[in-house]
């Protein structure tokens, strides 16, 4: 006996009366002809035709079309009375902005300004190695730790910076001891990290860092000739010392504990493949291709070593193509910044990276305790201070967390640090993946809002997003797996086998 039941056709379930638009933005990507990139408020995207875009806006998109369903599923359009669509959208928005919960999590301690290097692009006003007055005092360090624990963030990252922080190793030990004493009592998860050349890391220091599970970041600009030209030592052997330090650190702390990043000079731009290959040769799974920063010494020597972002982008595109090609051949290497951007593009989750957020990470996600007791909203903010502009000084280590958040500097940041409210940014299709950088704008243009239409921050990011979306429009299955593995920090499926063959 077959069950009797009348079934209604699909059309009976179509929405009765039209659709509404939720906020969305769009862009035409050079190199992607005939398609328009549409991004939702929470960063979901689709490539649609020009005709569909016009119909979408006119309210005449055919409910039976794939484009209609694709845009409805992404909550670009919603049908009347869909509370579920709004609930999903608000939930995704909260997730995207969840980095705002908890307050500053990244706390940078500039334990000394001294350094043994005299790099041409140095972002910090370095001092020669023997001037102890450029070290953080014990009182300042203790007050800074107190102030850090006033942040309500359940997890804290303590990052040691310089100068060369290992020149003030005693201060590092003091800070770690103070933090260790409090973190368990206060129920905080603490991660230690340090940016250092590591040349001075001896056995005792390495054992200490291993005990406290340090994440280390060092500078590696590429092959020896390039690295040594960029990073002069009197002994002219910075590259050799860095490679030796990498070996020592890996032997003691393990491979996972060490990453490296580049600073790219005008000379570097001629060698995209060589820079990447040096990272592969030294066994790094990631390379961070960083253009020069407009701060500190870098600004003064911009003429000799600097370049425009328009010159950086072709370099980046070549380097990225080389990296993709390496991965296709089974060599696992990622570009770190592309990893951040792709996490924003391909996942519903935010990232820990504080330099590309809206609201900006400066002061809200991070702060810097300078050697002299000044507290700054970001590393760039204290570099600007070294050049005489204290706009981003939140206060001093003796102040309270509340004082810092009520400071003039914080007001300045909040007024100019929300990309959604900045002219130009508010209409940009890449907004959901990008961030506001009032510190950069003030440094470059003397104004925290700045003229983003043509500035380096916007030129760089627009260019990077266009490069990445060209790949995403093409959607080569292998490239998608590679990009996804960067965005989700998981191994790329189907490419691991090739590693075995290559090895």
């Amino acid at each position, binding site marked *: 006996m077959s*069950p009797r*039941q009348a079934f209604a056709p*699909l059309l009976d379930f*179509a929405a009765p009366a039209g659709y509404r638009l939720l906020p969305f933005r769009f862009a035409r990507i050079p190199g992607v002809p005939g398609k328009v990139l549409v991004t939702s408020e929470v960063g979901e995207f689709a490539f649609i035709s020009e005709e569909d875009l016009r119909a979408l806006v006119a309210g005449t998109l055919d409910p039976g079309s794939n484009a209609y369903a694709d845009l409805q599923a992404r909550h670009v359009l919603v049908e009347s009375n869909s509370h579920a669509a709004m*609930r999903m959208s608000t939930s*995704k928005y909260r997730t995207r902005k969840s980095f705002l919960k908890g307050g500053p999590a990244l706390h940078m301690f500039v334990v000394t300004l001294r350094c043994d290097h005299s790099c041409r692009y140095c972002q910090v006003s370095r001092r020669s190695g023997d001037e102890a007055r450029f070290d953080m005092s014990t009182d300042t360090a203790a007050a800074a730790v107190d102030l850090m624990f006033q942040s309500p963030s359940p997890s804290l990252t303590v990052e040691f910076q310089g100068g060369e922080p290992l020149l003030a190793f005693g201060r590092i030990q003091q800070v770690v001891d103070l933090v260790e004493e409090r973190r368990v009592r206060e129920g905080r998860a603490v991660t230690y990290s340090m940016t250092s050349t590591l040349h001075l890391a001896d056995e005792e220091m390495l054992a200490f860092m291993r005990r406290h599970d340090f994440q280390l970041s060092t500078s590696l600009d590429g092959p020896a000739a390039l690295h040594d030209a960029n990073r002069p030592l009197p002994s002219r052997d910075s590259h050799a010392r860095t490679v030796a330090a990498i070996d020592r650190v890996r032997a003691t702390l393990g491979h996972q504990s060490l990453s490296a990043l580049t600073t790219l000079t005008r000379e570097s731009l001629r060698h995209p493949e060589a820079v990447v290959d040096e990272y592969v040769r030294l066994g790094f799974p990631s390379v961070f291709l960083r253009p020069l920063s407009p701060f500190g010494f870098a600004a003064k020597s911009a003429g000799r070593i600097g370049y425009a972002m328009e010159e950086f982008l072709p370099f980046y595109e070549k380097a990225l193509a080389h990296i993709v090609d390496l991965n296709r051949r089974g060599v696992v290497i990622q570009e770190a910044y592309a990893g951040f951007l792709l996490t924003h593009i391909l996942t519903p*989750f935010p990232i820990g990276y504080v330099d590309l957020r809206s609201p900006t990470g400066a002061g809200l996600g991070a702060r810097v305790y300078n050697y002299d007791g000044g507290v700054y909203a970001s590393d760039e903010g204290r570099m600007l201070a070294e050049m005489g502009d204290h706009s981003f000084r939140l206060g001093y280590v003796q102040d309270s967390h509340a004082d810092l958040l009520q400071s003039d500097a914080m007001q300045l940041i909040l007024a100019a640090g929300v990309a959604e409210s900045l002219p130009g940014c508010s209409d940009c299709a890449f907004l959901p993946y990008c961030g506001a950088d009032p510190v950069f704008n003030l440094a470059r243009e003397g104004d925290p809002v700045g003229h983003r239409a043509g500035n380096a921050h916007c030129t760089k990011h627009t260019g990077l997003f266009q490069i990445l979306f060209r790949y995403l429009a093409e959607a080569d299955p292998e490239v998608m*797996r590679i990009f996804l593995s960067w965005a989700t920090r998981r191994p790329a499926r189907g490419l691991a086998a090739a590693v075995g063959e290559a090895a």
Partner: protein
Amino acid sequence: MLPLHTRAKVSGTLPHPVLKVLGLAEALGTAVPRDRVAVHLPTGGPEVDFAALQELGFAALFRPDGGTAAGGTVLPEIHSLSHPEVVGTGDVVRVRQDNGQVGVLYRRGANANTLFLTEQCNSRCLMCSQPPRDEDDLWRVRELLELIPLVDPDLAQLGFTGGEPTLLGPLLPELLRACAAFLPQTGLHILTNGRNFSDPTVADMVGDALGRATWAIPLYADVPARHDYVVQAKGAFEQTVQGVYNLAERGHVIEIRFVVHAQTLPRLREFPEFVWRNMPFVSHVAFMGMEPMGYAKVNRNLLWVDPLDYGHCLSEAAWHLQDRGIPTSIYNVPLCVLPEEAWPLARQSISDWKNTYEPACDGCAVKQSCCGFFASHGPAWRSRGIKPFERMEAAE
């Protein structure tokens, strides 16, 4: 495939229709009340003192292949089963005193044990394998409340199915409480369309399932119209999504189920991205081939698509989620009609009591890891891709 029903002869008057069948040694040591235990006495077993068993308070004797019953004069006796292999020790059976029907309600060692909660449903899915009936079936819940204390407490997982279990109102929480009390170690896997959980007060009522249950909720499209069409209920997509969110906000574990057929296929490619963006918290996603029963048979022409023709799209969809860290499975699609890249996600998903293989499967090198077919699978549902694998081919 081992059926769940057979017939027996019953001598004497059973004190209770729902009984646990246990061997003598286990019966003497069990925590189950003796008046709910039928003592399993195989032919050729040791001599047993029936009077002593009666004195101990056992409910009945269970002699599957036994002939006449000398014991029937002392204790009630269930004997002479038409298919003795249907009932084993540890099983819980329902025995009809009047006509000798024996139904296995719980089978020890089965690959799945499922409680059937109700025949009522508020959806009418095009491919429903268990078409709802609007009859008063509260007796089922009463029987399940008798059954739950007799289930082995070391059971890893127990399924709830229907019908739509939330239509039971306060009886669903009562069943959850019974499981929490008698089966504290057992995970529950509960099939529901989730629609009623769009009411937060309904979601509040199932707190006893927290930490022990997975709510398996079907979603058949990333857009309302197609999902509502497949389940034949306007507003269902809206309610199910709200239900998923209400359960997730209360800390419940959620599985999403997607049945692949011609009416869901148009959104299969985009569906996983919707889950990833909007429900990345789900613990599992299952993409399922159809069970050719009930409405599925009626709507065969509307639904049928040879799995061979959607295998690649299905594989891409499943990996889309698996690659993003959401555990994903493919159910009910035999390996020979799936592309090999999808094999790592394919599971032996069909309950053993309704699981069969084709004659062609004999000698197939991957039969041991293949789901095979539903027993209801017939020529109208046969993929043109069905074939055995040679050992060498499969090893590649």
